[in-house]
């Protein structure tokens, strides 16, 4: 159990950082625009990130398990296109919604089959399905858009959830975050996900059903992307093939910003919630400060960069402090010998990103000959 306790320590520090940053953004926002701290502004702020927030939850689980899913935004777009496609063909809305959710689940299953059954690298597979699913959206709608949705449904996209000040998407996100958080942090399934991310082979040998868990995660990701697609379509009251293009970058940025390691094995759902809040507040503050909205990517990109550079810098500094050689020193082999236990107890996060792990791409485990070694 020692590693688990140890794992929480540096993450707690990461989340402290997020809280401080969020506070800073709040102060910045309030000082630039008096309307920043109003419930009306918070409503629109959260409305804008609702879909990203929902997709960030399964993405966090997938990244923790050592994989990635870059196809989420294309799944969103495909499902949005399907929604419009079926609606103008006279399908009743409840049936359309069921089919759209099922289509999202199938999209996730297709990813999962390619990754788990064929042993393909998830990065390559989901870059492929990113193109493929967006292509399906184009086939479904071509250059057309559908916006004849009934007001009852489009209201779901823009009005608060009855009895609250929050949009539907955020209420759904909060409920899902609680469910996913409990699953990840207090159930055997959650521990299995961490174990897979830390060492897939060891997890498989200790009886964890790696294939099944990964399949479930990708199906969940596909289905929640479909849900995000439905909300996105209703929010804009438009179904068009390029809906949500590029949102996968936002989702990945938020997940890494939340302190989930790109190498897998670490991360918390609390971090995701904090990261979503900070991300939304930051974009909103910039908007109110009259920063070009379309250029807000600079901030997202810098956040993404900072969230991977900071842990590396911290590990470098702490290694310097202990008089160990810096990153220029001997690679991996030295690590376990000079820091027996110490690295596992005191800075596992840093340990993960030190020499062994940081030169290792996320798809390392899928090299020919290692995955199917037996």
């Amino acid at each position: 159990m020692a590693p688990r306790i140890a794992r929480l320590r540096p993450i707690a520090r990461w989340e402290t950082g997020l809280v401080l940053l969020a506070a800073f953004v709040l102060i910045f926002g309030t000082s630039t625009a008096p309307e920043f701290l109003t419930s009306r502004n918070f409503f629109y702020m959260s409305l804008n990130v609702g879909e990203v927030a929902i997709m960030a939850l399964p993405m966090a689980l997938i990244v923790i398990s050592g994989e990635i899913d870059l196809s989420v935004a294309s799944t969103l777009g495909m499902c949005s296109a399907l929604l419009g496609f079926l609606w103008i063909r006279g399908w009743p809305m409840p049936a359309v919604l069921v089919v759209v959710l099922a289509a999202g689940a199938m999209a996730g299953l297709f990813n999962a089959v390619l990754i788990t059954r064929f042993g393909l690298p998830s990065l390559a597979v989901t870059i492929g399905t990113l193109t493929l699913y967006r292509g399906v959206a184009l086939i479904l709608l071509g250059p057309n858009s559908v916006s004849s949705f009934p007001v009852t449904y489009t209201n779901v996209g823009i009005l608060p959830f009855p009895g609250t000040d929050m949009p539907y998407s955020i209420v759904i996100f909060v409920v899902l975050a609680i469910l996913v958080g409990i699953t990840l942090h207090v159930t055997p399934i959650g521990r299995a996900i961490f174990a897979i991310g830390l060492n897939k082979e060891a997890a498989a040998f200790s009886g964890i059903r790696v294939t099944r868990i990964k399949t479930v995660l990708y199906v969940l990701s596909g289905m929640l992307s479909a849900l995000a697609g439905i909300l996105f379509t209703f929010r804009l009251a438009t179904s068009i093939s390029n809906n949500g293009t590029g949102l996968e970058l936002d989702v990945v940025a938020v997940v890494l910003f939340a302190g989930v390691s790109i190498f897998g094995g670490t991360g918390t759902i609390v971090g995701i919630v904090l990261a979503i809040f900070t991300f939304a507040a930051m974009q909103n503050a910039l908007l109110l400060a009259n920063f070009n909205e379309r250029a807000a990517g600079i901030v997202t990109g810098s956040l993404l960069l900072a969230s991977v550079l900071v842990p590396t810098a911290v590990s470098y500094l702490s290694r310097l402090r202990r008089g160990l050689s810096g990153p220029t020193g001997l690679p991996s082999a030295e690590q376990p010998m000079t820091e027996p236990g110490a690295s596992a107890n005191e800075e596992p996060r840093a340990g993960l990103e030190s020499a062994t792990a940081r030169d290792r791409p996320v798809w390392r485990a899928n090299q020919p000959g290692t995955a199917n070694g037996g």
Partner: protein
Amino acid sequence: MVTAPRQSPVVVSNAARLSDIVSRTRELGIVAVLVLLVVVTGVVQPNFLRLNNIQFVLLDTTMIALLALGETVVVVSRNVDLSIGSVVGLSAFLSANLFGHVAGIPIPLVFAAGLGIGIACGAANGLVVSVGRVPSLVVTLASLYIFRGLDILIVGGGQVVAFSLPTSFRAIGEATVLGIPDLAIAAAIVVAAGAYFLRSFRSGRELYAIGSNPDAARLAGIPVARRTFMAFVASGAIAGVTGVIWAIRYGTIDSTAGTGIELQVIAAVVVGGVAIFGGSGSAVGAALGALLLTSIASALQVLGISPFWVQAIAGFLLIAAITLDRGISLRLTTTLRKGNYRGGA
């Protein structure tokens, strides 16, 4: 990673030969598919083989094939550069905009400006990846955002329009030798040079070594950080020059120029047989992959199939290619293992 120490020198040379055969088979395979595509489409719809259309396809291929060369250099070293689309956009606008600001600026200087912008962007990527030791996927995802954001801030709502560019500049895109566009010939020469460098130069081979096993490469004395840095600089430089070609080709440039082109390039690279986890693949294969993808797009258009199918087909091909690679590499590993037993270690 686990099996490395077991391999005897004999097996290694076996491996080199086998993977050489495999990569050559891949290139031949693409050529075969390409020939089949051209013949079938040409028979069904002779318009496909009109000089006009062929020139069009070659010009489209030029940009993707050049970018694919840069991407190949990065991917064989087990990295990836997702920022090239943004670099193309930034370079296309800034270099074409020079004509508006500096009257009578010589065209080579515009190319140099594009190159410089590309090198600067590539160096930024390379620096963070090699010194910061951060996975390139994350770094270039971030710089995709950042470079595009800079582009948007610089361009604002404006754009460079075609008639503001000198005719001599636009004419570069229309110049041909024996019916083949000059730009395509230049790209072919650059790709050939790049392929030769990767294949026969020490630093080129070292990129493959890094991609096969970074730890082993470092222990073998290969300057991993420097090589990785240079790979990103090369990719950025090529993207910068491609930006100028973009300006020549399209004339009108706003802040969305080049958006999403990285996916087409990665598709071309992977379809062309470059392993996405590094260590194998050739620049010629990547260029052929680019030619195949643009030919398919053109064939669909000529055959009257909705252009909206192109993207789905590209995605399908990409997945088919990685599935095929996986099958081949599994078979290769099995063959090598057998060879190992026979060699009696």
